[in-house]
């Protein structure tokens, strides 16, 4: 039996009715994304779905016999610069649980800026390299399909017939599939074919073994090759480090970082061994006030692109550090400095965490809990505030070995 967990029911119907799922017994359930934004319902989600939702929630998760078999994230946003990576944590959430992920993203979207002619904002090709890195690490498909658009037929954006919808082409059946990509397009047909391969593979080999066979599948290999070709043709000779967000990183010897963090050491406390176990460190420098999107997804992508060699954060060649502020490397003193540009403060981080704690029931007495709160309380007893923190706090603290602000720092000891 299949179950489709969805954020938007129309998109669930679109996937079911365009793939071999339509021939099976399918149950649809609404997905509640986190304890932070759905405190009354999130605890009713099954544990195996909650694990995927820990980082961020994709638009759809499809499970077979209570095991997830794939997820889909769809976006219509223009994908230049960091924005291409805004939803990347949703892909990470899926593949980190060995669940294949599909990403539907426009090759370009028309942007009309005041006083200028409409133009195509094109996808940042580094997204293909990031997905390739994910596949190399997890041996699980993470495939991108273009949201259908006029971009190939109408390079002149002002002539595009769908300029009113940013050049994107939606399914013509707006009653059943409002807001869904054009299901007759070649890109969506390719994606449906890949989904059917997953359904068949999990039928043939069982869900767990079926997922691990997928990267050998011809249709999926073909898409992977297409994505690699897209990276090369669209990157125009630039290396990954010349493209955002990798271009916002700096590599330093780790002892520079340790010298900087030495300010927090005391007679009775020394920085733990994790950071020092890696010779070099990558710092992702965010010159913005402390906030979420698009930085959580970009941080996740940098991890796979530049740091990871294995399935967990312990398997990194380089430390991954997130810095809010301007990072200067002091070669003379073999350390770094961080100066404030946009008013980022570690107090912002603490404030966000403290606000999330308002959702926590763990300080309540039994007599304070109505029957509808007991199951949620019990979930929090097991998981603490794992799911009740806001997304960017969850993602930052999952991926970053340390977070540096001009006025304070956080780091992992082990």
């Amino acid at each position: 039996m299949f179950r489709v967990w969805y954020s938007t029911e129309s998109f669930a119907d679109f996937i079911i009715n365009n793939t071999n799922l339509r021939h099976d017994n399918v149950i649809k359930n609404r997905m509640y994304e986190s304890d932070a934004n759905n405190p009354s319902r999130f605890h009713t989600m099954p544990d195996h779905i909650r694990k995927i939702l820990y980082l961020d929630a994709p638009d759809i998760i499809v499970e077979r016999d209570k095991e997830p078999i794939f997820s889909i994230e769809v976006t219509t946003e223009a994908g230049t610069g960091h924005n291409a990576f805004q939803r990347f944590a949703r892909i990470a959430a899926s593949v980190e649980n060995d669940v294949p992920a599909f990403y539907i993203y426009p090759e370009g979207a028309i942007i009309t800026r005041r006083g200028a002619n409409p133009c195509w904002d094109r996808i940042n090709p580094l997204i293909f390299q990031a997905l390739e890195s994910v596949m190399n690490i997890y041996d699980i498909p993470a495939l991108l399909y273009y949201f259908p658009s006029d971009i190939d037929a109408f390079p002149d954006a002002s002539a595009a017939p769908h300029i009113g919808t940013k050049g994107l082409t939606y399914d013509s059946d707006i009653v059943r599939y409002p807001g869904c990509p054009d299901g007759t397009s070649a890109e969506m047909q390719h994606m449906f074919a890949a989904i059917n391969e997953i359904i068949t593979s999990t039928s043939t080999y069982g869900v767990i073994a079926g997922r691990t066979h997928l990267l050998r599948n011809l249709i999926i290999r073909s898409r992977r090759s297409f994505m690699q070709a897209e990276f090369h043709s669209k990157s125009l000779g630039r290396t990954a480090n010349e493209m955002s967000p990798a271009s916002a990183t700096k590599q330093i010897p780790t002892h520079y970082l340790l010298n900087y963090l030495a300010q927090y050491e005391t007679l009775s406390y020394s920085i733990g061994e994790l950071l020092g176990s890696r010779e070099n460190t990558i710092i992702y420098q965010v010159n913005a006030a402390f906030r979420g999107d698009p930085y959580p997804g970009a941080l996740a992508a940098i991890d796979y692109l530049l740091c990871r060699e294995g399935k967990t954060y312990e398997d990194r060649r380089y430390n991954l550090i997130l810095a809010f502020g301007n990072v200067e490397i002091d070669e003379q003193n073999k350390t770094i400095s961080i100066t404030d540009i946009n008013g980022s403060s570690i107090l912002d981080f603490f404030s966000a965490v403290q606000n999330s704690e308002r959702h926590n029931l763990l300080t309540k007495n039994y007599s304070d809990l109505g029957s509808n709160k007991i199951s949620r309380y019990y979930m929090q007893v097991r998981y603490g505030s794992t799911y009740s923190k806001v997304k960017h706090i969850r993602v930052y603290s999952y991926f970053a070995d340390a977070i540096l602000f001009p006025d304070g720092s956080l780091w992992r000891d082990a």
Partner: protein
Amino acid sequence: MMREEQVTKAILKWLTENDWQIVCFDFPQSGTGILLHPNSAQSEKNKDGFIPDVVAVKDSISLFFENKDRFYYPDYQKINNLIVSDEYSIAINELLRPYFVNEIYYGIGLPTNKHSKRSEDARYLVDFIVGVNGTFSVDILYNNRNIMFP
């Protein structure tokens, strides 16, 4: 409980079955909406912009819907602001430029069973209120301007 997505989809179905042309629509997480900027906007940022939930055109009439899964008084105020002011007139005229439109009406969509006394009391703020009932068909709950609905 009926969700906003279901309210909007039922209204879209009702309109298209009755030959209204859909200009644009939006519901939570659909990503399809068109952001309309106020005339005073200095930039393309989202601040102070609004995204209509449904805009439809037929026979030189255009309907703007603000939909919710419940009664929500600020929506009635927002609709009233569109009726009594020209705050978004440039963006609305641009949106409707490809169509021949003489009259624009602004109203509310919500589940029929959420059209409560408070909704009745606030109806003077809007041109129309349509409800979506338990069978996902549409009820005309208020039509102050005698709009030629389907």
